């Protein structure tokens, strides 16, 4: 492991460079030396040093602080340790302010330096592990992991890319299970906040006071059991994104608090007297019609407009049936691997069944249905029989009053509704109506509907 962390020693005295390098090499490190700042920079351009020991005083040319600053410009991740003599400790402290990781007064105890090096490298190891994990997460939530060939969804994906690096608040609307959190993650991980935290908070499950302390944190002694200060989700999301799920469920008091955070980007911890400033992008989601909630007086109008700067409406799965085969195959592949079961795929008849189902629980329901069928599947291929329970236990069809009109009128209204729901998209409307596009055009002409 040690060999992967190269170290650079910069000092104008050869003896100093060579003896220090020899000592570190005995410890298994790859060590280079440079007798001046210029040479150090040349080396730093070629090698990603984990640690650079830089002597503070180097006569002629660049001194230690300049060298350090230049090295850090080339290698922001490199830890610079300033070497100093007793007489120049003040300057060394200055060097710390300029970004040195540490300073050591020479000569120093061998134990001190050996501990310093291993402490820094331990930190480097954690940092690099962290970076790898972050990269993994980002890959997991890249846009093309949202599976769709539905034009409306594709438009949404394009929009999330456009808004990824903005700071504006986003409101995602959609029935439960349509992938609101997935879209929120896609926005976060494709923007310039990707390296910072993405914090999820579901607002539905908690009582007002609990939610308040979860969101804003609390001070020691703020309430019984608050034994130490705790940072809330907003603070944890500093620099990143906070995803507030089921925002339509929060109490009037929290609505007011949230409005203040959105307006001023500042808040108080519960029981706190000092304001906390945060820079967290807010992405909120709801399955309620918030405007209706506003009309009913249950949701603050000003908060609604603060949240609704950019609105994304996710279609229900039944309105993007063409995605069902894609999603189903994807889930079969993923879940069968996870469960260690060999499943060849979904039979044609079973797929028809899945496409026809109404999916009140949307993509999440589809995922669960596939998982259950894989668990109970007996012959390596998901067939009709594996989904036979689906129709029986599926949610009841939504009931509606059939208006007392002619069949033609009924058809005309159905077409208009289908078009309206899809913002005039004929292709989508035809899929929803279960007829092909040319038939839909014929009917549009026949009923004199302009779209």
């Amino acid at each position, binding site marked *: 492991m040690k060999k992967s962390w190269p170290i650079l020693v910069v000092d104008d005295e050869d003896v100093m460079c060579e*003896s*220090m390098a*020899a*000592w570190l090499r*005995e*410890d298994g490190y790859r060590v280079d030396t440079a007798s001046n700042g210029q040479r150090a920079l040349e080396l730093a351009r070629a090698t990603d040093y984990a640690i650079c020991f830089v002597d503070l005083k180097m006569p002629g040319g660049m001194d230690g602080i300049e060298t350090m600053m230049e090295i850090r410009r080339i290698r922001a991740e490199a830890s610079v340790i300033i070497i100093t003599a007793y007489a120049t400790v003040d300057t060394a402290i200055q060097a710390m302010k300029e970004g040195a990781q540490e300073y050591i007064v020479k*000569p*120093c105890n*061998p134990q001190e330096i*050996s501990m310093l090096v291993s402490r820094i490298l331990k930190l480097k190891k954690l940092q690099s592990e962290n970076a790898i994990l972050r990269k993994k997460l980002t890959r997991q939530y890249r846009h093309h992991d949202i599976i769709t060939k539905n034009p409306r969804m594709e438009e949404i994906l394009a929009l999330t890319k456009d808004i990824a690096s903005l700071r504006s608040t986003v409101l995602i609307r959609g029935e439960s299970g349509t992938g609101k959190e997935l879209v929120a993650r896609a926005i976060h991980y494709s923007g310039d906040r990707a390296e910072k935290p993405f914090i999820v908070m579901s607002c539905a499950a908690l009582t007002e006071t609990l939610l308040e302390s979860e969101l804003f944190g609390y001070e020691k002694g703020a309430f019984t059991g608050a034994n130490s200060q705790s940072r809330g989700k907003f603070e944890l999301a500093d620099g990143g994104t906070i995803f507030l799920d089921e925002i339509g469920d929060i109490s009037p008091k929290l609505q007011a608090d949230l409005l203040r955070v959105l307006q001023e980007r500042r808040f108080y911890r519960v029981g706190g007297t000092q304001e906390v400033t945060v820079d967290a992008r807010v992405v909120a989601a709801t399955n309620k019609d918030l405007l209706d909630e506003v009309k009913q007086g249950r949701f603050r109008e000003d908060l609604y407009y603060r949240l609704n700067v950019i609105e994304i409406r996710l279609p229900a799965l039944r309105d993007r049936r063409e995605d069902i085969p894609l999603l189903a195959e994807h889930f079969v592949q993923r879940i069968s691997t996870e469960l260690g079961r060999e499943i060849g795929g979904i039979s044609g008849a079973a797929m028809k069944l899945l496409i026809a189902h109404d999916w009140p629980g949307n993509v999440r329901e589809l995922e669960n249905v596939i998982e259950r069928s894989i668990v109970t599947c007996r012959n390596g291929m998901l067939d009709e029989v594996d989904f036979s329970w689906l129709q029986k236990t599926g949610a009841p069809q939504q009931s509606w009053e059939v208006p007392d009109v002619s069949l033609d009128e009924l058809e005309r209204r159905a077409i208009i509704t289908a078009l309206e729901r899809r913002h005039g998209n004929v292709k989508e409307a035809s899929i929803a109506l279960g007829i092909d596009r040319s038939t839909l055009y014929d009917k549009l002409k026949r009923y004199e509907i302009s779209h």
Partner: protein
Amino acid sequence: MNALYLVSIGSVPQETWEWVENAAADWFPLPIRRLPPLPIPPSAYDAKRRQYQSVEFMKMLAQHAPQDAERILGLTDVDLSIPMLSFLFGQAQLDGPVAVVSLFRLHQEFYGLPADDNLLRERTVKEMLHELGHTFGLTHCSDSKCAMSLATHVELVDSKSEEFCSRCGLHLVHRFAGNGEI
């Protein structure tokens, strides 16, 4: 066959030779020869620190190494250091021919305690094995009992054994095995 040369720089206690030669013979399958003592190089003395720069010792050893020297180990009774560190028990060229061990801080007297020859023998052997181990390509070992573990104070010297761990020992066996190339 090339030899391992031992040489004192300044004077070292007479019995040291026996300790060092016996232990070295146990681990390094090379002829062991002794050179006439070398004087302490005057340029090595750092009056401000009242210590000796080990780099000067290493340079001198390299100059005095005979043609057939596979490795040369200097032993000294003065306090060694390098500019960066306050002291050294010894120093070696990693995978190179030269090493030096200082007995100065291995004496109990240095710590204000009564002399203890047995302890001095153990410590000297450990440091000799450690520095020669470096010259044969070994770096510090994470096994605290192994002679190659890093000792930054004398208690750590005492807590290791006068042996290489099996992994470091195996490394040496591979080095010495086969075509005689070290």
